[in-house]
């Protein structure tokens, strides 16, 4: 990726991460007891983004795991969790790289979580089951990450004929199709995580404004 695009994505990503870190500090001061869930959300990204899975297209890719953090803590704070994982992968695994860290943070830590957050809020408003809302949010957060990655690559490497749009289609062909089955699996696993959170710490969900008391009560009465 050319230098000016690296700088551009850094410039876009860093203020978001900085604001996320600020919000995180404030939340930690106000509510010490949400810290474990924040750690679990970060660990969830750690696990899922380390799993390279074969997809039906005959290639491998890995999920992002950002859906959970986005739903619980919002996209701002999820960007902080993501950049930690991305720095680990860039330094120790030569996976991603430090120059492209800005672009990766933008696609995985910001664009994906924003989409996931909006999908969650939107589907909760429509009144469907919370677990399905979680499933959809994680699915689209994962998918959006790879669509945005395709856009980033297309902007950096426009095709000689057809320009950015042709490049975008070429990169999308690589990422998007591989990612569809993985996104479905990620959505399902994230929904399962939420089942345990509802069972064990539903008070935190209320505190973080993730669900209303009536929804929690309904979910607890239902045996799933």
């Amino acid at each position, binding site marked *: 990726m*050319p*230098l000016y695009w690296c700088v551009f994505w850094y410039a876009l990503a860093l203020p978001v991460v900085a604001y996320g870190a600020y919000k995180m500090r404030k939340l930690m001061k106000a509510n010490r007891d949400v810290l*474990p*869930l924040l*750690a*679990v959300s*970060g*660990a*969830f*990204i*750690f*696990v899922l*983004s*380390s*799993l*390279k899975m*074969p*997809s*039906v*297209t*005959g*290639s*491998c*890719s890995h999920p992002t795991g950002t859906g959970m953090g986005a739903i619980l803590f919002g996209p701002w704070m999820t960007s902080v969790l993501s950049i930690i994982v991305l720095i*680990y992968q*860039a*330094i*120790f*695994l*030569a996976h991603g*790289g*430090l*120059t492209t860290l800005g672009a990766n943070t933008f696609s995985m830590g910001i664009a994906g979580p924003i989409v996931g957050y909006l999908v969650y809020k939107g589907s909760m408003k429509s009144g469907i089951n919370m*677990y399905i809302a979680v499933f959809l949010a994680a699915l689209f957060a994962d998918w959006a990450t790879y669509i945005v990655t395709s856009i980033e*690559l297309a902007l950096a*490497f*426009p*095709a*000689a004929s057809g320009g950015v749009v042709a*490049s975008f289609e*070429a*990169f999308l062909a*690589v*990422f998007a199709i*591989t*990612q569809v*089955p993985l996104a*479905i*699996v990620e959505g*399902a*696993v994230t*929904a*399962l995580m939420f*089942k*345990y959170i509802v*069972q*064990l*710490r539903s008070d935190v969900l209320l505190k973080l404004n993730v669900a209303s008391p009536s929804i929690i009560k309904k979910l607890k009465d239902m*045996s*799933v």
Partner: protein
Amino acid sequence: MKMELIVLAILVVFIGAFAYVSSTGNHEWSGSDDQAKDTIDKLTGGTYRPWAQSIWTPPSGEIESLLFALQAAFGSLIIGYFLGYYRAMAKMNVASSSKSKKET
């Protein structure tokens, strides 16, 4: 239990699809990021050279998978620890509240 079964079913379909695809035809199972690299080469006619080197690359594939495994293990450890902690706490709350009910 129902949701675990649904997730399990999705995983089985996913593995089944993998088994089917890999038994039909020849696939490399390479990473999609490597394929993106090929696409970059195709689009730029092979003129693009990455201008930054990684500060450190894992010396071999084995060491790379070790580091990935460590990452997954560390993450799972945290998740398991806190879910277990919450579970025990929930149980204790139930036990102590039923006890106090009996006493009164």
